[in-house]
């Protein structure tokens, strides 16, 4: 592998790993906040238990998110120094503001976790809201940096030097609003589906457990499903917006994603199939005439640009068709699933019955699927920008470091991620095995478990 390719794979892997924990980090405090809020409103202890169990998982995930995030931040400079040179001159602000968002999150997280028994309960609510706010802000700001890479503005490149720099114009670049909306909404959707999956798994596995536990898990499932379904709807809307946006601003990405070679009106939407660079079309697949034009422009006769408009060496890889399809499929399926499961649960509830076991089994897969959609979406967005690291300004090839030992670094990081993945799963599973839900009901006090510090 050459230097640039190795750097791309390494960086892509690091981000793909980080985004799992980052998304959980954005969504979990939001869910915890909802649980705390429900506890305040309904005075129902189940929600307090929910909040405390989610918090426990969150503390572990947060730490992995923070370390992998630190890795990403410094790796940016180590792998792509020439890109960071431009970043420093033009788009340093979101990176800098983001630090303060992290600070906000970290400070209030410590307060919420370690000191919740020492502060009055309204302040507990404030601190968890601050954690959620900090997490959302950090996602928004980093997404802005990425939005800049896709639609750069606020500077002029003359002979490889950036001049006439207007930082805030770079900050408010055109793809920022729609992108942040889609990223945020899908993170909330994913985490809600994950908590729904966990509750469904609990119900599915322990069918004979005692009724307080079943009630508790039912509540967790319903709250999660309501939130997940709401955000699925928003995800589809914002995804549609994203599609229209890239049709206007990054037509190569959309064309490659849909295997559209010739510019045309009434452009077809192709679902499935195999994009072939040799035959210059998608082989097989289900064609819906005019739909792509409609999705991209809002009109069936709208003109959609094809790849032939661009020099061949600036075409993105065609395989992003798969990740685009996967994201959309998962998004549509999950939306339908959410609505269906909620309706079913409502009907069953009226007959004083629980959700059927097959439904629970299906729901167990919702969370992991949603996370897979996030990964697919990012691969589509990032690989679809290739060969540019900054769209139409700087090529990835020209941004990579020239340092030696890339191979060694690559292997070490792969090992590290493997260790982290295994370690985190073992630790979280171990914790909840040793502290099953039943234990929470044995304790009669309403106070959340007091968190001691290390030995």
């Amino acid at each position, binding site marked *: 592998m050459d230097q640039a390719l190795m750097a791309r794979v390494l960086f892509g892997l690091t981000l793909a790993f980080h985004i799992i924990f980052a998304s959980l980090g954005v969504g979990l405090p939001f869910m915890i906040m909802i649980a705390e809020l429900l506890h305040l409103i309904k005075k129902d202890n189940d929600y307090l238990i929910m909040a405390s169990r989610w918090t*426990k998982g969150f*503390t*572990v995930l947060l*730490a*992995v998110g*923070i*370390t*992998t*995030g*630190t*890795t990403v*931040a*410094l*790796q940016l*400079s*180590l792998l*792509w*120094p020439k890109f*960071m*040179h431009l*970043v*420093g*001159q*033009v788009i*340093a*602000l979101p*990176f*800098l*503001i*983001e*630090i*303060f968002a*992290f600070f*906000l999150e*970290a*400070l209030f*997280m*410590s307060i919420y976790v*370690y000191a919740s028994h*020492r*502060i009055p309960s309204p302040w507990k609510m404030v601190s968890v809201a601050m954690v959620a706010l900090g997490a959302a802000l950090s996602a928004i700001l980093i997404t802005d940096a990425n939005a800049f890479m896709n639609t750069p503005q606020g500077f002029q490149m003359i002979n490889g030097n950036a001049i006439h*720099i*207007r*930082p805030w114009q770079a900050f408010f670049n055109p793809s920022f609003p729609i992108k942040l909306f889609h990223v945020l909404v899908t993170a909330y959707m994913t985490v809600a589906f994950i908590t729904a999956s966990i509750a469904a798994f609990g119900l599915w596995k322990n069918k004979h457990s005692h009724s307080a536990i079943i009630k508790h898990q039912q509540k967790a499932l319903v709250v999660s499903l309501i939130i997940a379904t709401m955000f699925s709807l928003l995800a589809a809307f914002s995804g549609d917006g994203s599609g229209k946006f890239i049709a206007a601003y990054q037509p190569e990405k959309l064309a490659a994603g849909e295997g559209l070679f010739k510019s045309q009106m009434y452009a077809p939407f192709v679902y499935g199939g195999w994009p072939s660079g040799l035959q210059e079309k998608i082989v097989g697949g289900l064609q819906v005439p005019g739909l792509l034009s409609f999705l991209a422009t809002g009109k069936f006769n709208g003109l959609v640009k094809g790849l032939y408009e661009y020099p061949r060496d600036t075409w993105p890889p065609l395989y992003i068709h798969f990740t685009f399809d996967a994201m959309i499929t998962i998004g549509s399926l999950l939306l339908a699933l959410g609505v269906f499961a909620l309706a079913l649960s409502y009907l069953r509830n009226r007959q004083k019955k629980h959700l059927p076991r097959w439904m629970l089994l299906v729901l167990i897969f919702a969370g992991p699927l949603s996370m897979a959609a996030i990964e697919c979406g990012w691969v589509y967005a990032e690989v679809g920008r290739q060969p540019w690291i900054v769209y139409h300004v700087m090529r990835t090839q020209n941004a990579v*470091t*020239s*340092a*030696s030992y*890339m191979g*060694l*670094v690559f292997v*070490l990081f792969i090992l*590290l991620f493997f260790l982290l993945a295994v*370690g985190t799963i073992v*630790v979280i599973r*171990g*914790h909840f095995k040793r502290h099953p839900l039943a234990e929470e009901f044995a304790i009669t006090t309403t106070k959340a478990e007091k968190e001691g*510090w*290390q*030995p």
Partner: protein
Amino acid sequence: MNMADVGMVILLALIFIYAMTGSIDFGAGFWAMVYLRDENAQAAVVANRYLSPLWEVTNVFLVLFAVALVGIFPKAALVYGNLLLLPGSLILICLTLRTVMMVYAHVVNRFRRALRIVSGITGILIPALLVNVFPLSNGGFITMTSGDWQINFHTFVGSWNVYHFVLLGLFSELFISAVFLSDYARLSGDQEAFLQYRKHALWLGPITIVFAILIPFTLPVHALWMGNSIQMQKWWFIFSGILFLLMMYFLITSTLNKMRNMRLAAIALALQYLFALWAYGKAHYPYLLYPILTVQNSFTDPTMFKNVMIVLIIGIALLLPGFVWFWRLFLSRRAFFESE
């Protein structure tokens, strides 16, 4: 002072803060390993208690430093980023292992022993790697091949001066953490740990100062210019030396019936390092990396700099109340008793 110099002062301030909090954080990890076999040693208890709320704050300062460097001196980020792939990645890997172990051990008691070993070893490795930037920035280890700068690892690893810096860094780390942990033990009224860390500080202090005095002697081998400009700043260094003597005085007199002197020792120590860093920074000026990078030629666009400053000031102002709350909840004397 022009804008670029202001930027440099900010960067120095961040280095100072990270050096202090990092020393305490990594040093505490090391001390917890030293007392590994004695499960209930008070010294280890104190070290661990200090660790848990601190690492996140330290980590944020590391990221803040990297981002500030990119934002204020993008060209320096370019050149250093291009050079440091291997050491930088090793630091990141150690840091990740350490943080993650810390949290794992917090959740699973069984991992506590492993944690102490991991955080002890990485508590030495990370600072040792970080300190390498000092000799590197003095020049003499970098060659230009086909248009790109490369570290000449061969001469770097074979240089006495590099090891000299590493040892000074490591002893400083242990020294700083011993003093601060001793003061922390005093706050929690823990006499045994207080005496133990005081004892360590007493022998570590003189060693660091010996290494510091020897630096100008090994420096000229690779960086004659730096050797000379250190001479020019000798009054600042002498001032820092006086603070060291003051610190030693407070340290020695901080016996069990005068424990409060440890706080004075900690303050003098922080000032000592502040002035030493200031003097070193002045001697290094105007180079960020000799002879290619200077403060002026790596400086960012002025509009960007103004905005970076505005964001920094607003950000710090907004977070200050949160910080104060954090401090009162975790690190103040009152907090300590409440959490008992």
